[in-house]
């Protein structure tokens, strides 16, 4: 595995990540009766809402403190106050997340202080305000996501009595993935608090009447009680300690942390099931064994095609790790593994996964698609796995793209893409295998003829001359 970043260049050409506050919005969308405000220019919230809406096909209401030129001089506290007042009046949320963007951070707004002051001044009860400092230059959306989750936990967690539930902390997965994880938790007979739970809020059924805040999400009460849990299961092996909600619960409240990879692939899903069995004392039901057996059956049937794949996996570090590992497990060699994030853990975790690869894989951190494209070309990648921005690889290099992650804006159903658990992995693999097959069929005859036959004709002619 070779490690590369784009740091040697000054230009980021076609980015592979978004900014920190964008990532911070998502967890708040997974809390019951919550709203979120971005403290900064109004354009930030508009741009991010647009991108989130495009992926989930849902209304995404995010407030803005709409700081303008005057605010850059006198500070934005007044704007934020007004924003909080208005959001409270119209949405009546029980929790408001306040994220900062570049502007507020650059002018040095103390958003936590302002928030405290607001609470005190308005003398509010029954509403929680969670401020998260997320400057656009402070990290990618992945870091923003994890920091927001951590701040939510830190802001709400209380010293409560021990109970028999477990905490389940998830990275940015699709609502369908979250539903699948919840189904597995239920099958394993465990009581849990899953945070953040976007499964209903960001994949909302048509239902009447329309409500401004979608029903669903993790309840505030259950988050408060997380410190009393038996354990925390966090799908966050690439998350740095300082951003890790599970680590926080462990160090602050002594809740044992089990940091697992996203349950994608046989091994990772096995790990989750084993852990849940151990924590709950329950065995996996036969239906889960059947699902595992079907996944294995799928893997056996498809391994010949997958082994011909040379993959590029890109996106958020946590999902990239899970997908690269699933590819490797299936003999689909991940030649390029790339993320816009700079997390050091990805590298550490990927090492063993890529150890058996037929040739050195390239790990690109803090990367852009121009670098990814070059790496794909150099390693002979023939299948890409990641979010829609990778369609560039299809358009320019003819590498087909299996969509996974966020954002998916050129196809429908990104919110319904199921890729975790035994069954989700099977679906993911079928998508990958069929993409390989389709690409192969499309090119097979031409390639075959060119490589093994046509060439000869000219050679023959040459010989006969």
């Amino acid at each position, binding site marked *: 595995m070779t490690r590369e970043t784009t740091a040697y260049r000054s230009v980021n050409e076609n980015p592979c990540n978004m900014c920190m506050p964008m990532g911070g919005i998502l967890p708040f969308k997974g809390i019951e009766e919550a709203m979120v405000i971005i403290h900064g220019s109004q*354009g930030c919230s*508009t741009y991010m809402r647009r991108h989130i809406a495009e992926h989930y096909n849902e209304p995404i209401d995010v407030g803005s403190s709409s700081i303008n030129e005057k605010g850059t001089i006198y500070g934005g506290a007044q704007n934020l106050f007004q924003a909080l007042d208005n959001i409270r009046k119209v949405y009546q949320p029980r929790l408001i997340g306040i994220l900062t963007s570049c502007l507020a951070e650059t002018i040095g707004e103390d958003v936590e202080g302002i928030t405290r002051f607001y609470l005190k001044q308005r003398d509010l009860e029954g509403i929680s305000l969670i401020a998260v400092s997320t400057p656009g230059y402070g990290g990618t959306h992945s870091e923003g996501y994890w920091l927001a989750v951590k701040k939510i936990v830190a802001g709400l967690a209380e010293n409560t009595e021990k109970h028999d539930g477990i905490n389940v902390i998830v990275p940015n997965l699709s609502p369908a993935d979250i539903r699948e994880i919840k189904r597995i938790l239920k099958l394993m007979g465990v009581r849990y608090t899953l945070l953040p739970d976007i499964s209903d809020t960001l994949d909302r059924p048509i239902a009447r009447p329309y409500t401004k805040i979608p029903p669903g999400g993790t309840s505030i009460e259950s988050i408060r009680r997380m410190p009393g849990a038996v354990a925390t299961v966090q799908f966050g092996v690439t998350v740095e300690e300082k951003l890790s909600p599970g680590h926080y619960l462990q160090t602050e409240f002594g809740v044992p942390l089990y940091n697992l990879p996203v349950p994608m692939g046989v091994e990772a899903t096995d790990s989750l099931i084993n852990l849940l069995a151990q924590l709950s004392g329950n065995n996996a039901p036969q239906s889960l064994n059947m699902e595992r057996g079907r996944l294995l059956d799928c893997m056996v049937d498809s391994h010949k095609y997958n082994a011909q794949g040379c993959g590029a996996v890109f996106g958020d570090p946590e999902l990239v790790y899970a997908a690269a590992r699933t590819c490797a497990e299936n003999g689909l060699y991940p030649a390029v593994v790339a993320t816009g994030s700079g997390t050091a853990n990805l590298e550490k975790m990927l090492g063993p996964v890529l150890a058996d690869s037929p040739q050195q894989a390239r790990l690109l951190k803090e990367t852009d698609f121009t670098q990814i494209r070059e790496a794909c070309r150099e390693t002979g990648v023939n299948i890409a796995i990641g979010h829609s921005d990778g369609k560039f690889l299809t358009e320019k290099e003819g590498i087909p793209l299996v969509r996974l992650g966020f954002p998916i804006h050129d196809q429908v159903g990104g919110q319904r893409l199921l890729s975790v658990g035994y069954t989700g992995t099977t679906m993911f693999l079928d998508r990958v295998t069929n993409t390989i097959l389709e690409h192969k069929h499309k090119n097979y005859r031409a390639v075959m003829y060119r490589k093994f036959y046509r060439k000869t004709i000219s050679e023959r002619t040459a010989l006969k001359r």
Partner: protein
Amino acid sequence: MAINEKMLEEILNKYPAKVKRNRKKHILIRDSAQEIQEIEANTRTIPGIITNRGCAFAGCKGVVLGPLKDMVHIVHGPIGCAYYSWLTRRNKARADEPKQNFLAYCVSTDMQESDIVFGGEKKLARMIDEVVEIFKPNAITISATCPVGLIGDDIQAVARAARAKHGLNITAYSCEGYKGVSQSAGHHIANNGLMENIIGEGDWEEPPSKYTINILGEYNIGGDSWEVERILNEIGYEIQVVMTGNGSYEKLKNAHVAQLNLVQCHRSINYIATMLETKYGTPWLKVNFIGIRATIETLRNMARYFGDEALIKRTEEVIEKELAEIEPQLEPYRKICANKTAFCFVGGSRGHHYQGLYEELGVTTVLAGYEFAHRDDYEGRDILPNIKADADSKNIPDLHVAPDERRYRLKIPVERMEELKQDIPLNNYKGMIDDMADGSIVVDDLNHYETEEFIKIFKPDIFSSGIKDKYIPQKMGIPTKQLHNYDYSGPYAGFRGAVNFARDIAMGFATPTWNFIVPPWKDQPLLEGTIENCTANTCVEEVAT
């Protein structure tokens, strides 16, 4: 269903008092009996109100500069804004030289914390060098995002130095997101920059053909400008440059030779239009290529301006031919669209432009508005002298241009000009309100809360707006039509575009999907039953939860 002041009041009662006062001035019920109906526009967005407005950066880089295809548009700032303005406007372009089309590229300095602390000028300068080397573009723009102005990076100086170093047109735009009150500020900044640095840089002195025109405020969303160009070419016009859809630096720099400037989107580009007249004597004509009647009127107005009999004849021939082609195609769609109602809330001009096309298809616009327009876009340019510049507007100074001594030419005699002005919108735009039917609603800067409330009252058959708000009506069982990006469809301009639009909205009405989602009011008198009998406040809450 119609709306009255009382109902409007009830909607606004949900707001805190101060907000209510503010929003009230941005909403009016059209009443032609009143000689003047004033509306407030282009003022600060209220914090915490879920607006659809963007920022100056979005208006400058995202809208005006972005579509220029042979230039690399550098975003100086942290990665987010560069990412968010990457390929999101669907302004299409096809370069004559395939390698000189950079629209698919997002190029950013990706500022990090250390750049914020120590300044990003050096990084920007290095980056320009790299961009010149990698892309070899015809020109480069640099757009600033929020932190740049705040930390005091002098991007103008960096641009000047780079321009000198590389001998390339490299210009900087201080369009930080906090400038002004919406993307409108960014349009103005971009207009100033293009006028000051690019238009007129070319060495042409004469137009390449008799009927040389520029098209301003056309961004080729979904291929609109290709359809417009097709029609104009067929009549015999020579299009020097489209600003800025499918446009290029190479064409733009000689834009000064045109004999007439067409203005499609008044809001985003009227600055250049007026400056071109001042500097080169080129009049501008407000046009509208959305809708069949509007297109025909536009074509006739253009012919009238040039006043050439052959051109007038050719114009009528083309109109006749085009109509013969599209009328039979429109017929089935018209049947589906008849007697429907629409909301039309879009940007700076489309909110007005699409009403005519809707009407031709049998769809009445019952609510319309703009995200970021100014009062003149609602009330007409006659109002301009009455608009007081506030602090936010003053932040974007007007660029002062004077007649170009060498190149200024009166394109037509002053008397004829005055005469024409009586009949055609030469150097004039009369705004949206005038075209609206009595009882319809005009809303400036519509937000999510109001969207929901107005839908409950009007129960429109289609909601046309953008992606951020479209999911609200859809969840309520109402078809939508994105008029920012056309839902990956288009073109909608001109004759053939009208057919596309008709097809697309007809399919929205006709799809059986809606049968399975009976909107609440269709089988439960949810709103009608309660609104009369409750205080406004509890009533709204009842609906909302």
